[in-house]
């Protein structure tokens, strides 16, 4: 049994955080160049803004908020897919968490639910099994989202559905991969990023090894970091130390859960059911080759994209023209540089990817810093 206080105890100690802030300042003073750290994952963006970590750092350290939020990166056409599937008669669409809030071109899944579609947000993908068993006369479609962290859960669900021969459970796969997103950000010649905080949850599954290529290709430090304030501060110190010594290494701050190789059983399960998709359009960033997964051919009978191909809209839909999410995700702009931030674009009526989920950069700025600070 899990004891709840074990989840955060010790990782929010004010004295430890203050002492790390002091050390970071001393170390950063030795650096001649500015340190532009991309926190790839929206969870880190959330931590930084929620706990005001950016306020504790010297001026020569800046955060650039990366594309790693599974909700934020979902292009409108994929949400339109979900809405089209949910609108079919005798269909139940299941998805995770705040995916239900994200607007597609014809509205969010929450709006479609209010209009009568059976759309159910769940906490655990395996809940889909019970829903499918309880509704044998309906088609249950799991709109699967998330980075490497949540992909194994979808694989486990598919394995269970196969084993138990639950034939009315289908999948719409939107699982995406972190390393190609890093490559897409760095491919821009104007990219300012010169260090990365690697997402801990992704690394628990995929292993710290997945960031070695970034360290070598871009000559930047990568530190795999936990999500608590102490974790993030310690990771920044590790990056700053590397910078002050002109090093570029892969380091693992989150060693309490991340290994070099990751969870091999989970990786095996994912590979059994899924393969790399040739192309996937990211909201804000556009198409990125080999950046997402799809079901293998032998499981096409469960692939809603194949089974209902004729019913799914094919048109690609970009964010609003005034939206600067692409530049924000590449580190070329800050949320407050965007003309529509807090005006036409807010958490209630988001125009762009960064405002849609609570882990998006614009959403975090708006929520914790407001429009005027």
């Amino acid at each position, binding site marked *: *049994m*899990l*004891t*709840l*206080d*074990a*989840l*955060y105890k010790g990782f*929010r100690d*004010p004295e430890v*955080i*203050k002492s790390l*802030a002091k050390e970071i300042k001393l170390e950063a003073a030795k650096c001649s160049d500015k340190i532009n750290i991309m926190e790839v*994952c929206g*969870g880190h963006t*959330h931590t930084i*803004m*929620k*706990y*005001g*970590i950016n*306020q*504790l750092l010297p001026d020569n350290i800046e955060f650039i908020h990366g594309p790693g939020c*599974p*909700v934020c990166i979902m292009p409108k056409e994929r949400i339109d897919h979900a809405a089209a599937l949910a609108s079919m008669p005798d269909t139940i669409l299941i998805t*995770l*968490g*705040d*995916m*239900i*809030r994200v607007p597609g071109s014809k509205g969010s899944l*929450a709006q479609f639910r209010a209009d009568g579609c059976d759309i159910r*947000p769940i*906490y655990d993908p395996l809940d889909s099994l019970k829903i499918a068993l309880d509704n044998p006369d309906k088609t249950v479609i799991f709109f699967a*989202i*998330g*980075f490497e*962290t*949540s992909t194994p859960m979808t694989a486990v669900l598919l394995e269970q559905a196969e084993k138990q021969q639950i034939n009315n459970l289908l999948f719409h796969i939107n699982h995406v991969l972190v390393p190609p997103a890093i490559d897409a950000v760095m491919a821009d010649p104007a990219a300012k990023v010169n260090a990365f905080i690697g*997402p801990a*949850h*992704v690394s628990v599954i995929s292993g710290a090894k997945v960031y070695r290529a970034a360290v070598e290709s871009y000559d930047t430090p990568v530190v795999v970091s936990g999500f608590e*304030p102490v974790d993030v501060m310690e990771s920044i110190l590790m990056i700053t130390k590397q910078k002050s010594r002109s090093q570029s290494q892969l380091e693992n701050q989150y060693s309490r859960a991340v290994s070099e190789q990751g969870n091999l059983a989970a990786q095996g399960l994912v590979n059994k059911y899924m393969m790399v998709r040739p192309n996937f359009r990211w909201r804000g960033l556009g198409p990125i080759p080999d950046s997402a997964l799809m079901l293998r051919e032998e499981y096409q009978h469960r692939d809603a994209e194949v089974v209902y191909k004729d019913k799914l809209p094919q048109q690609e839909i970009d964010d609003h023209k005034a939206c600067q999410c692409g530049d924000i995700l590449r580190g070329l702009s800050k949320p407050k540089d965007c003309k529509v931030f807090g005006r036409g674009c807010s*958490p*209630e009526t988001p125009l762009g990817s960064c405002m849609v*989920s*609570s*882990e998006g950069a614009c959403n975090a700025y708006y*929520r*914790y*810093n*407001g429009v005027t*600070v």
Partner: protein
Amino acid sequence: MSTNVSKTVQLSHGGGGKEMNRLIKDIFFKAFDNPILRNEEDSARLHFNGDTAFTTDSFTVAPLFFAGGDIGKLAIAGTVNDLAMMGAEPQFLSSSFIIEEGFPIDSLKTIVLSMAAELKKSGARIVCGDTKVVPRGCADGVFINTSGVGRIINNGISVKNLKHDDVIIVSRDIGRHGAAILMAREGLAVESELTSDCATLWPIVEQLIASNVEIHAMRDATRGGLSAVLNEWASASQVGITANESEIPVSQEVAGLCELYGFEPFDLANEGTFILAVPQDCAEKTLQIMQTFCHCEQAAIIGKVNDFKPGKVILNTPWGSSRFLDVPQGELLPRIC
């Protein structure tokens, strides 16, 4: 389909005939008995003298029974607390039930007895009511609406009445009801003694008023939690509020659960926790009275009213940074990773 009429509520129980009469007499009248109700008139005949507070609330909680309470306790405490927060002594309540066909009679009795027990804590009486039975699938077990009226004893309490240099006091640890419901709903396998804070607040409010504490604003932090109350106050009174995170009591269970789901304890619902704004020179006296009463042992000063950023609530972290404490938005849904 059950054929045992006595064990579950049938559509006929809402039909206005014998079955309905029996249900009302055997369950509701028995539990809520008082002379006004016993008159069985179309309306309760009441007498008011002076300013009167009037409020209504509907309760649709799932699950109906949770650690620390049930929908019945909630329906009484919720309405009584709305009156108490206006400085009004709760007097008369109405109670309307919408019951789903097939609902177990024993569960209905448990809920009604829970309501009767909670009424005793404030002395309020249910003087009128209504019962509807809807076909299976049209309601989630039981919905209850309660309305209430109360005699206003302290007239100065208002959401628009916060003054610069007032202190903000919270009566106990926050977020328990929202967290308890979440745990009951999701059946989380975690070690926890977590119970809802669901409670009637009139006894403590009565003490504060009797002790002549100058209360500028008072509100129970129900849906939207502490964040919603502080933001409503800052906006309505056009003042700034600064709260110190380290002073806000949060149980380890609630804090841990929030970590699991990506929630903030400040956003979670409470059903027996209230927030006060009092002048600084009343703060110690207020705390002393509160801390001698049950449920308020953890009462604490958590912040201050100021003229910095009117309409906004700023939360200071224990390590020297600060941020806006915004109102929660939309459904509370767990983060994805």
